[in-house]
């Protein structure tokens, strides 16, 4: 972890240039370029089928892609998913993908799978229980038996247990009650204070942009708009196209 406090926000962590990807010859992404700087919350928004998840999958190196991805000045394109993970690029996947028949504690430990510093892992586990008190209460419960919101907390905590430099969260709010989403948003603000950078991928454009520093709006496989989140919310074109506001 870098030392907290010093506002090194201008330094880019992730730089994507001219990224293209697709499924079996069908292009799903065309010429996508974006940048995420340290300790930023960046929102990647767009409607269904815009290519948001495909972009995340390409960044995690689960699917092949063209173009360049630089993470921490490291070239990611040549890496396998587990190597990309090892560089600190951690995904909280859509649908959470928890280990349903394992306990909450084991799920969190699974997040620290690649780490060998046992004492620090135990420390982080306690930190997670402080960050998500609900998980602390349910640490011995099977992950699959919890509510959707609790499962999302578990998935985020599992991702954080890997000590990510960039946490990419796919559809955090999907299917959750607004009050739960509020809690999760507070957690995002909290972890950003701890110098974790967040790339938030959301269908709920308004929600994501209200929290993020900057945003990218995707439409049919490419970036349609980008800029400061506040400006995007006020951008008439975005309002009209995605928020349904005139």
């Amino acid at each position, binding site marked *: 972890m870098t030392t907290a406090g010093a506002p090194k926000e201008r330094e880019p962590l992730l730089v994507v240039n001219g990224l293209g990807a697709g499924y079996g010859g069908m292009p799903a992404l065309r010429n996508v370029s974006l940048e995420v700087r340290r300790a930023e919350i960046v929102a990647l928004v767009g409607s269904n089928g815009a290519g948001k998840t495909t972009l995340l999958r390409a960044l*995690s190196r*689960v699917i092949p892609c063209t173009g360049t991805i630089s993470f921490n000045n490291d070239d990611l394109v040549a890496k*396998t*998913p*587990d190597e990309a*993970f*090892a560089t600190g690029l*951690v*995904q909280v*996947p859509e649908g959470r*993908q*928890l*280990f*349903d*028949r*394992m306990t909450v504690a084991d799920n969190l430990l*699974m*997040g620290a*799978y*690649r780490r060998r510093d046992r004492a620090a892992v135990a420390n982080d586990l306690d930190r997670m229980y402080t960050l998500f008190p609900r998980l602390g209460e349910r640490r011995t419960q099977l992950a699959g038996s919890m509510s959707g919101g609790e499962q999302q907390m578990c998935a985020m905590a*599992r991702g954080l247990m*890997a000590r990510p430099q960039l946490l990419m969260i796919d559809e955090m709010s999907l299917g959750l009650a607004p009050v739960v989403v509020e809690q999760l948003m507070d957690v995002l603000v909290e972890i950003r204070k701890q110098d974790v950078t967040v790339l938030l991928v959301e269908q709920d454009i308004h929600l994501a942009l209200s929290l993020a520093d900057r945003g990218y709006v995707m439409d049919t496989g490419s970036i349609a708009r980008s800029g400061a989140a506040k400006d995007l919310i006020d951008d008439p074109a975005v309002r009209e196209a995605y928020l349904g506001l005139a």
Partner: protein
Amino acid sequence: MTASRLGVAVAIVAVVAVLATVPLFSSDVIVQFGINALLLAVLAQGWNIIGGYTGYASFGNSVFYGLGSYGVAIAMVQWNLPFAVGMIFGAGLAVAFAFLLGVPVLRLKGHYFAIATLGLAQVMSAIVSNIGIAGQNIGLVLPPLNNDHLFYELSLGLLVIATLTVFWLTRSRFGFGLIAIRENEEGAAVMGVNTTLYKVLAFALSGVFTALAGGIHAYWITFLDPDSAFDISLNVKMIIMAVFGGPGTVLGPVLGAFVLSAVSEILSSKVTNLAGLFFGAVVVAAVVLMPRGVADVMRQFRTAGWRYFVENLRAHRI
């Protein structure tokens, strides 16, 4: 907790010690039954690694068995090498096979994986039938060694090693990764587990024990041909035994192999030609009443009592 663990460990060591002395005061029939049961337990334990812990129901383990048998036979008959070298050769063949075919086949999941591996044994049998050094479809006759006590102790030793390996799996980072793959492969990949490598390693580890059991069996029986070496029904047996005992547990598959071997032996000596029917009934009853195996019954029965079986019946909605 640690006291009870120590108790279990002491009990297991005692059981192994007793088993090791069985040949000293038993008839030949018992010893031969013992060799078969021990080798089947090794096979069930080997299958447990890929099927029970990693969650890939392999029907290709009979290929490993055949490769182990042929490894020993070819080394001893064609090259006049000692048995031990043959065992290493057979295990090497199994590992090579696991890596060569594991990489493409382990991309498949669920039924597709089962079907793909089901085909492998047939193919191998056909290939070996056409290889001169393997005796083509006539097979090979090994130099006889009339020492059942030795084969018994060898089988027992192999079973102990296989079981210790599985025990190590349950406490290792590698084993935790395999269980994660079984529980949610995508989740495991997202958390940085190199799933392809892990699956292939589990397949190879499973293959090594299966091949070694095949090698011991070949030397003991002193004869093998392609059909018996790559017999798919043996693979079905491993799965039944592992599932009966409790897949994904350390002692379940061993227990399953012992119990079912005994049941099958008693049935075939008492009711002879109807034995298969009764054996089938036992297996069906086991799957319906205790789908998670004997190991789970032993854990739950204390608290749930007979209700355990009733609840499993209900869960099936029969």
